């Protein structure tokens, strides 16, 4: 089979094999379950790293095609739906990010109880969807994997969550599915306008972009559909309200994966499908979404300032940071878009880190209310320091990932000289201060100060698996922060076709 000679497919096959392996384990055999999960996650990380190396090698060897490792196998012939694979720089780094977060997520849910086997089953199903989404270049398969990634959330939150989990899980699922309803219509519309010769419709987004046949009036209809569809997942104002509740109720690893990777699907889709395929409408309607995302950034940050639940703070902070991603994408130049991808990476890692730490803290104190905690730095210094580092990454400390991402975005956004973009860019920059406010507020209340609850004194610091989980993420955050050019070189060329398409319709 041709498809199996493409290494990308193994990003789907490995999780599926892991699923199969997990299915074979016994419910009670916790060690076997862990072993399978860790093996799968490690294999994914290894493959992702290899993919990066391969990609750099291919580019160095002069492969300048838009996507490398392209394979296309006919799937549904009557509809011309193919299993089309291919990656460019953006997908490569997103795959790398996902692999890392899956890896950290496995360790973060080491002591999952009850039903560890089922938990990991759903967890890896979710990963399958995520990886499948990033390796696909066919709209149908992309959408399919997108939904595969969404639905396990329901059970993961519903069964293993906490708090008001039923409500949150349902709300999250329904809102995201609502988004995907928009998306589905958008994709179908794109399909039927994908070519100017009737009957040769295609789902392959490279072909669609090449044909550039979507009529302008249809673009004006389909662009909002797809953008909102992905925007919901990207927590765009005002469709972000699933995020606080969902994250608050989700178990640690799920929050990690969801905020870390799943929300990135939104940003990735916005640029890969909405903007790339419909540049005209993007130029025409971009300002609407720019306004919304601009609001997201500031609004999320301000909302985070007054929350008292750790996860809510983080969720609103995600709204702000993910708003930044979409905001940057809508700036339509390669610098800002590069920044957007960096921000996805950065936000993915640091939010995962945050959620991992929150989960670990919650697992010990059994509360997430910052008013009931204090001085935890005395008691669990490792977690405390990790939290501070995550906080610094979030508020954009140089040397950690947040800084390079935000700066790239700001510099890119500042390319626009008109008043409208300027105002929103300046507004977006203010978020760095507000972010500092809420991050330091939490750090101050949670970690510093006197110990609030005397019972907390008997708690322990992180154990080995928790350290692996957090250390992986911290190192990743630091690597991006210290060597951004490595990633930028991978990412940047991927935007050339998009930017060309966008400028050609100006």
């Amino acid at each position, binding site marked *: 089979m041709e498809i199996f000679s493409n290494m990308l497919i193994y990003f789907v096959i490995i999780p599926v094999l892991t699923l199969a392996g997990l299915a074979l384990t016994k419910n009670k055999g916790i060690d076997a379950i862990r072993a399978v999960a860790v093996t799968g996650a490690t294999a994914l990380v290894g493959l992702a790293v290899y993919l990066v190396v391969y990609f750099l090698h291919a580019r160095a060897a002069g492969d300048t095609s838009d996507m490398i490792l392209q394979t296309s196998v006919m*799937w*549904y*012939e*009557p*509809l011309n*739906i193919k299993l089309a694979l291919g990656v460019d720089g953006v997908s490569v780094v997103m795959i790398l990010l996902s692999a890392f977060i899956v890896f950290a997520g496995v360790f973060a849910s080491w002591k999952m109880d*009850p039903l560890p086997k089922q938990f990991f089953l759903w967890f890896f199903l979710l990963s399958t969807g995520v990886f499948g989404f990033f390796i696909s270049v066919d709209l*149908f398969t992309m*959408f*399919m*994997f997108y*939904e*595969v990634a969404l*639905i396990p959330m*329901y*059970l993961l939150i*519903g*069964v293993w969550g906490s708090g008001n*989990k*039923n409500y949150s*899980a*349902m709300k999250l*699922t*329904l809102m995201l*599915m*609502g988004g995907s*309803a*928009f998306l*589905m*219509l958008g994709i*179908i*519309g794109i*399909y*039927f306008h994908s070519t100017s010769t009737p009957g040769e419709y295609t789902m392959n987004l490279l072909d669609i972009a090449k044909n550039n046949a979507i009529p302008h009036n249809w673009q004006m*209809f389909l662009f909002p559909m797809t953008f909102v569809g992905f925007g919901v997942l990207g927590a765009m104002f005002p469709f972000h309200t699933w995020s606080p509740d969902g994250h608050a109720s989700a178990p640690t690893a799920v929050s990690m994966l969801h905020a870390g990777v799943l929300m990135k699907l939104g940003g990735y889709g916005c640029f890969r499908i909405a903007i790339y395929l419909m540049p005209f409408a993007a130029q025409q309607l971009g300002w609407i979404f720019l306004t919304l995302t601009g609001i997201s950034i500031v609004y999320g940050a301000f909302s985070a300032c007054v929350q008292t639940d750790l996860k809510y703070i983080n969720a609103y902070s995600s709204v702000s940071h993910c708003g930044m991603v979409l905001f940057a994408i809508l700036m339509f130049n390669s610098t800002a878009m590069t920044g957007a991808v960096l921000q996805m990476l950065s936000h993915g890692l640091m939010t995962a880190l945050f959620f991992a730490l929150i989960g670990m803290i919650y697992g010990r104190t059994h509360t997430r209310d910052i008013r009931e905690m204090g001085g935890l730095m005395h008691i669990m210094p490792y977690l405390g320091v990790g939290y501070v580092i995550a906080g610094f990454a979030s508020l954009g400390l140089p040397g950690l990932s947040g800084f390079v991402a935000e700066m790239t975005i700001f510099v890119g956004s500042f390319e626009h000289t008109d008043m409208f973009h300027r105002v929103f860019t300046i507004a977006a920059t203010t978020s760095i201060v507000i972010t500092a406010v809420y991050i330091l507020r939490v750090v101050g209340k949670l970690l510093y100060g006197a110990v609030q609850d005397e019972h907390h004194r008997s708690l322990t610091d992180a154990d080995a698996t928790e350290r692996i989980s957090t250390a992986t993420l911290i190192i990743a955050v630091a690597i991006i922060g210290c060597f951004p050019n490595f990633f930028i070189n991978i990412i940047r060329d991927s935007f050339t076709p998009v930017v060309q398409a966008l400028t050609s319709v100006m």
Partner: protein
Amino acid sequence: MDYSQFLMMPQEIGLLVVFLLVFLYDTFMPSKSHKGLPLFATIVFGLFTIYSFLPVPDGSAFGDMFESNKATWAMKNILNIGMFIVLLQSIKWTNSDFVAIRRGEFFELMLLTLFGMYLMISGRHFLVFVIGLETASLPLATLVAFEKKYYESHEAAAKYVLTAVFSSAIMLLGLSFVYGITGTLYFNEIASSVQGNKSLLLIVALAFLISGVGYKLSFVPFHLWTADVYQGAPTMVTSYLSVISKGSAAFAFFVILVQVFGAAYAPVWEWMLYAVIVITITVGNLFAIRQRNLKRFLAFSSISQAGYIMLGVIAANAEGMASMMYYILVYIFSNLAAFGVIAVIERKTGKVTTDDYNGLFKTNPWLAFVMMLAMFSLGGIPPFAGFFSKFFIFMGACSTGSVAIYVLVFIALVNTIISLYYYLLVVKAMFIRQDECVIPAFKSHWSEKAGLWICSLGIILIGIVSCIYTGISNITNSDAMSTMFSMIQQ
């Protein structure tokens, strides 16, 4: 007199042979070995199912009253598969104490109603169609009343038979108008003579006709019998009603609308269907939200599913037909899985409400798993087949390119969110509420297991294995079918 024309209908003949075998077994076998009748019937029907995959001759018979082509062949096979699963799942139930005495009749009636459905599918004359319709619904009324120890069963049967006759009366009135206008009942002749006719009478006739078929398909507002009958009928009959009966009606509906009223009359019925679909999907969903009885719940869910099926009809082209047939196939597997689980649990414990299902995963993980597959498939969640069928039927609808259809698809999509909500409620009960399980762990019969296995495999594989859809699509796109669609003037 040319009896060789009967050779045009090998599937119907084969089915009647199966019926006869079962009938003879029922009549002449000693009561000792009577217990083997369900198994016998299932096996024979299984063989028949395989047999009917043999290709059939294309063409029409009985002076264009009957048509056999690849599409009808495929549709009948789809129904056969569903029927086989239903029979398989009812083996254990028909041997249970209260039903055992009537088990022969159960299988005979099932087979005869299937025959009626064949006629609906293949009939190209309204008389044949009406007889098929009645054959498919009247014996079903008696099947509904099968569970004699339950009052609900009688009540359901009474409701069913009264409303069914009422609806057929309305439909016949509409048909009489059609006859009055065109002077013929042959599909192909009507098609040519209604051309350009824009009278109110034809519109009324069409509305009555749609209401009559819509009754079988449970369109709102002709759907009100559905929930009560589904709830009262024995679960096996309910599952039969909800998938096989509905599937055949949908196909016949497609043929009638496209072939008979397709030419020049498409705008009228498309408009009607548009309205009906919107109402059907929405109201079905709204009702389903509040249901606690699972059979009733699935009744409303099937109402809204019928709305989705109609999206293929409104497209009125080869893509629409292919996606509709594919949707029906997937729907058969999904719904039968759900009903299979319900039937097993009802047989073992008599519990049918969602609250009873709380924590099912803890005691019966496999049943819960299959139920979840069914719910996800019905809700259109990938990678299960329901996702593909939903996507394709939306694509089929949108292939007409009209903006109004896009709006319709959007409404349908919004409704999928509501439907997902209630499907997830079931999943929630089984998986999330683990603390309060009332259904004890038990072992199901091998036949039920087999049925559920087939359904699960179907749900998982039909989507991923693309050749099924491709095959159906090749059939509907073949030259033989193209004449049917060429009449539609978009």
